[in-house]
């Protein structure tokens, strides 16, 4: 009973039931993370939902039938019958407003049944140009055109070259960026707001261990995040993983470290949730758009290319696609790796200089 109430100088050595501070700090961060249902959603569920949604919206290209409308006119029925019988064409009923139907993508092309027929379409759209060729071909053949020869066709739909295969590494890259930056920056700013950072600094805790624990915990969430996203791609869509698992893991870890550095830098001074949300959105939004997550970076004009290829997410996406889809070795993506390393080291150094504990 006497020892129970004693406080002064107990003989207890060791850490009194606690382990090394780095372990405790990392555990604390991991516990906070798994006890936050939203965090699990963004890290694990979100990439799957996103991949599914995009896979449904953009199924394998090329096999899509073209959608065609037929305008009013004396020969309208004949044209409609001809097109309806031709392969790869769907005839849609459209109202009087042909332009609206084209603008909204309801049909790719409208045939006005004059003699010869008139095609109305938006030549800036790929689908419309395809529709023009398909419709033209069908109508001419029905009118009695004979072809000098018919080419043999070899449809190519091998796993690894479809949009979904290209998309999943991009979504993984995007997720490594957002979970890393949000995860690290948010928890630090929250601790600063709660004056918890100040309290920790008032204890003998080593500041470097606190920051290191944030990064270690981040790397630990990376494991389920990457495994679930890639396993989903492989199991649900038959996406191949052509590179070695070690190379894939190395690229993911390097990407996560790089964005951890940026996350630390973003959080180094922000003292409100509004401020950190603004900083994170401002730094991540350009990368969502420019870094080739959903569509190729080649869509942007040449003047932007140097900027796009200097971004860390572009480097991560390019490296992931090269390793996952093309089976590239780490040496082959050396340029991207160097860029990611630079994006990790420089912000990390700046963050350490700028960091405000309270």
């Amino acid at each position, binding site marked *: 009973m006497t*020892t*129970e*109430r*004693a*406080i*002064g*100088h*107990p003989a*207890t*050595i060791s*850490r*009194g*039931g*606690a*382990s*090394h*501070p780095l*372990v*405790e*700090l990392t*555990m*604390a961060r991991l*516990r*906070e993370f798994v*006890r*936050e249902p939203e965090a699990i959603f963004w890290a694990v569920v979100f990439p799957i939902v996103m991949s599914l949604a995009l896979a449904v919206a953009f199924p394998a290209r090329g096999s899509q039938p073209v959608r065609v409308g037929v305008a009013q006119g004396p020969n309208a029925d004949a044209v409609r019958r001809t097109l309806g019988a031709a392969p790869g064409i769907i005839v849609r009923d459209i109202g009087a407003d042909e332009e609206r139907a084209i603008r909204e993508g309801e049909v790719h092309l409208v045939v006005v049944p004059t003699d010869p027929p008139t095609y109305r379409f938006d030549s800036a759209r790929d689908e419309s140009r395809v529709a023009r060729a398909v419709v033209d071909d069908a109508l001419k053949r029905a009118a009695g055109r004979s072809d000098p020869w018919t080419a043999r066709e070899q449809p190519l739909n091998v796993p690894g070259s479809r949009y979904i295969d290209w998309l999943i590494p991009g979504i993984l890259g995007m997720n490594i960026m957002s979970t890393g930056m949000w995860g690290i920056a948010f928890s630090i700013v929250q*601790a600063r707001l*709660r*004056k*918890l950072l*100040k*309290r920790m*600094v*008032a*204890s*003998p*805790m080593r500041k470097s261990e606190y920051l290191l624990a944030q990064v270690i915990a981040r790397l630990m969430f990376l494991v389920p995040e990457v495994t679930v996203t890639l396993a989903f791609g492989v199991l649900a869509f038959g996406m191949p993983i052509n590179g070695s698992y070690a190379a894939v893991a190395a690229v993911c870890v390097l990407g996560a470290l790089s964005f951890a550095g940026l996350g630390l830098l973003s959080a180094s001074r922000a003292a409100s949730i509004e401020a950190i949300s603004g900083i994170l959105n401002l730094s991540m939004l350009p990368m969502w758009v420019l870094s080739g997550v959903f569509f190729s970076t080649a869509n942007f004009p040449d003047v932007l290319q140097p900027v796009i290829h200097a971004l860390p997410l572009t480097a991560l996406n390019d490296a992931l696609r090269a390793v996952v889809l093309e089976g590239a070795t780490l040496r082959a993506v050396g340029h991207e790796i160097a860029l990611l390393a630079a994006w990790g080291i420089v912000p990390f150094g700046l963050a350490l200089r700028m960091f405000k504990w*309270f």
Partner: protein
Amino acid sequence: MINSPAVRCEHLRKRYSDVVAVDGLSLTVERGECFGLLGPNGAGKTTTIEILEGLLQPDEGHVEVLGLEWRTHEDELRQRLGIQLQETRLAEKLTTEETLRLFRSFYHRGRTVEELLRLVELEGKRASWVGKLSGGQRQRLAIACALAGAPDLLFLDEPTTGLDPQSRRQLWDILDRFRAQGGTVLLTTHYMDEAEALCDRVAVVDRGRIIAVGTPTELIESLGEPKVVTTRGTLEDVFMTLTGRHLRDD
């Protein structure tokens, strides 16, 4: 070194852009003593205690804690001090036990987590998230975190502000037990009954200076004739006389 006071500071001065928060403050806290800083809001109590805790750098003046200086012995001092800050909110999604385990891991020596839980009577709440604790329980947890390294000196900044009377008494008991083991306490408060109940000596701080220092009894006697003949004056009378009766809203 052994005979050096627990805290000694001289001529502390700290200015924020346009306000002088601490204006030439000197004080000495003896070992084993419970010393209270009393003062209205904005008097400079928190700035003073945070300078003594090595969290703020004074513009001028000299600080010695346990005979050591922050500049040269920060690591040792951090190991030997227990600190509770005003307004710290511990991580809500960690349990009481996990929080203590975390803080305990920073110290080379000290009580076990089990002993700390018993000490602040939170054994029944060991598995509860901090976010689910009452105000009094959170404050006891904060004190347990401050006691995790078996400190020689405990700094408490308004430890009972906002607590109900039972929770305040419980905290006082914990402090009594700490002192019974020879621990030194420096606390700030604006509850006069708390200062009277806990402190061996108090200093009244106003506008960044100490305007009176002594035992609660001395200060009350210095007021002279009590206003009501049958009862002795209280520390509250001393406080009001010294700092004035107008409201301090800043």
